[in-house]
Structure formats: C-alpha cells, structure tokens
C-alpha cells in the first residue's frame, strides 16, 4: 500500500471505483415487496398520461429515420439512457417488455382517425360571374399562419402558444380612394411653414409685397 502522505486525487478516484464494486445489493425480499407495492398502486388499465403528445412527437420524428434508428436508440430516445439501454439490451426479458410497452404507447397515442382534410375544388370550376358580366372582385383573404408551439412547464402542464401571422399582401384597404397614401420615405420638397414664426400668410393679406 502506498504511503498515506502520498495519496493523490487519482488514488482517491481509484479507491472510489473499488468502493463501487463493494456495493450492497437490494435484499430480494425488500425488492419484491417494494415492487408489489408499487405495481399495486398502478391500476390494471395503466396510468393515464396527459403528455402523450410528447411521446407522439418523439415517435413521429423517429418514423422518418426509422431505418437508421436501431432499437437501442429508439429506447434511448423514448427515455432510457445509455446505461439503461445497455442493461435492457443484455436482458431479453426486458427487451420484450419494453417493445411491448413501446408498441402500446405508439398504438395508443397514434390518432384513431386521420385528420380531416377539406376537399379541394375541381380544377375546371370557374368563379361565377355577375349579371353585368363582370367578374366580382374576390374577397380579400387573410392568411392565418398558426404555429402551435407547446411549451412544457416543469410541472408538466402543456401551455400552447398560438402565434398568428397575417399575410400583409392580402390586407384589405378600408378606404382606398380617400385615404392619402403615406410614404414615410418621402422627404418634403418644400417647407410647409409649420415652424414658429414662419407660418405662410395668404397672398391677399400680405402687407409687405414688394
């Protein structure tokens, strides 16, 4: 054994690693009791999770690259860390349980019905004309771009924030003829005279005409 005075941090790390090896295992009877108690709290139907969307997004993201993603990575992304997955990978029983669990999650959180899509009009359909034969001005259309960004709070409540974007090109002009156009980039060509002491007087009232 090394002289105590020469013990370095490196030696302490080595000793800690040795200490790791001399770990006490979970007494089997305590473990089985605890497991029984834990699972006893879980109803047969499982527990309902409010944030299935998260799992759904994880899985949807994975589907696109499914060919590249191995089972271990899949398990890792769904929540198990690398060390955990190693343990799972070495235990066929756990692999089966997790695969069942994963399939279950995927089946459960997948939408039961596909999203409703509005039928697009047939391509040969023309816009109906008015009596005078003029084509009516199409109604101004707003393009609402909604981006639903769920932000997850630590307590797990999902707070979606809705960002609405209005396409400015389709904005209707309320009174296009009467409203003067204002161009902020235009510079005044002549002095309007709205300065102190420089208010222009009408030509008839001028006294000091040359």
């Amino acid at each position, binding site marked *: *054994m090394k002289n*105590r*005075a020469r*013990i370095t*941090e490196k*030696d*302490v*790390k080595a*000793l*800690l*690693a*040795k*200490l*790791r090896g*001399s*770990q*006490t*295992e*979970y*007494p089997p009877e*305590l*473990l089985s009791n*605890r*497991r029984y*108690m*834990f*699972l006893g*709290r*879980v109803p*047969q*139907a*499982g*527990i*309902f*999770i*409010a*944030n*299935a969307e998260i799992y759904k997004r994880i899985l949807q993201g994975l589907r696109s690259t499914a060919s590249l993603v191995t089972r271990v990575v899949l398990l890792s992304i769904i*929540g*198990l*860390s690398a060390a*955990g997955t190693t*343990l799972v990978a070495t235990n066929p029983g*756990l692999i089966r*349980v*997790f695969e*069942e*669990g994963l399939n279950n*999650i995927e089946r*459960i*959180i*997948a*939408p*039961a*019905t596909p999203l409703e899509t509005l039928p697009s009009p047939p391509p040969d359909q023309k816009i109906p004309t008015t009596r005078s034969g003029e084509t009516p001005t199409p109604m101004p259309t707003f393009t609402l771009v909604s981006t639903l960004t769920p932000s*997850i709070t*630590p*307590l*797990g409540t*999902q707070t979606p924030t809705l960002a609405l974007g209005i396409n400015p090109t389709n904005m209707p002009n309320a009174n296009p003829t009467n409203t003067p156009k204002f161009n902020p980039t235009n510079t005044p060509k002549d002095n309007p005279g709205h300065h102190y002491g420089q208010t222009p007087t009408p030509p008839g009232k001028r006294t000091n005409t040359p």
Partner: protein
Amino acid sequence: MVEKKKGPEPPPNRLDQGVLAAIFDLYSRSIFRYALRLCEDPLEADQIVGDVFALFQKQVSRGGGPRTELRTYVYKIAYRIFMDHARERQRTVPTGTAELNRRRDSLDSLGEKQTLLEELGSAIQKNLTEKQKHVIILRYQEGLGLREIADIMGKDINAIKSLQKRGLSKLQKSLVDKP
C-alpha cells in the same frame, strides 16, 4: 333538428403496467444503492425507493415525467427526496446520524482496524457537504456523467465540477491526515 354525429372517442393516453414494471426493474436497484450510500440503512433506502417511484408515478400521471432522459429523471426525484430529508435532519435532532456515529465510534473503540476503503466510505459521510456527497456518489459510484449530475441537481456543470474537485480534495486530505 340535426343530430350531432358522435365521433370516435379519443384514444386513451396511458402507460401500462408492463412499462412501469420494467422501469421499476431497471432503476430500483440503482436507486437503492444510491440511497444506501447516503443513509447507510437498508430499510430507509428501501423506503426511499418507494417514495421515488410513488412520486414518479404521480408526476407521470399529472402530465410530468421525463422529457429526455428517464434515468436522470428518476435520480432527480431521488436527489430531491434526499435534500428534503437533509433539510429535515438539520431542523430536527439528527437521530440517524448520531446513531451512525455511535456505531462507528464503538467500532473504533473496539480497536477494529479499518481498511482504506472503509475510511473512505466514512469520510464521504463525515467530511463532505451534502452536495459534495451527492456529486461524489453519483459520479464515482453510480457512474453518471457531469452533465447528468448537473441536470439532476439543477446546477451548472461548472458548479458540479467545482463540487467534485472540492469533494475529492477533502477525501484525499481526510485519508492523508488520518492517524
């Protein structure tokens, strides 16, 4: 009167018992070891395992649960439980610690020769602060990475490095100074 058509019921969102049992099987042992290293009492460690998984189930059913790493999440729950216990111990009479120290003193008084490993185990308990203890145990005995520990303890990675450095030098000093 137009009768409203009933759409298909939304799919239930649930985690079944199999998954939860597998999660328990995966982490109960490591949480037990972590707890045992901190409290040195198998019954208390077992109780902590129970608390951790009860809280885990509660969080998941409330819509919480892990975002990325399940292991980090489970350890985080355990860490919070320990910190609560530590605060409780500071407020009340430290019966557990006193008992533990009495046991150690009696061993010392009997003149039982302690090995370096035992001394180290004792130094972890006696000489380190609560946070240093967690960092050292999680890093060198549970084998977690610095980033994971930072996530568990809710601290910056540099703070974890600093806690680790101070903890290691304290342990080194305690082993060197031991008569």
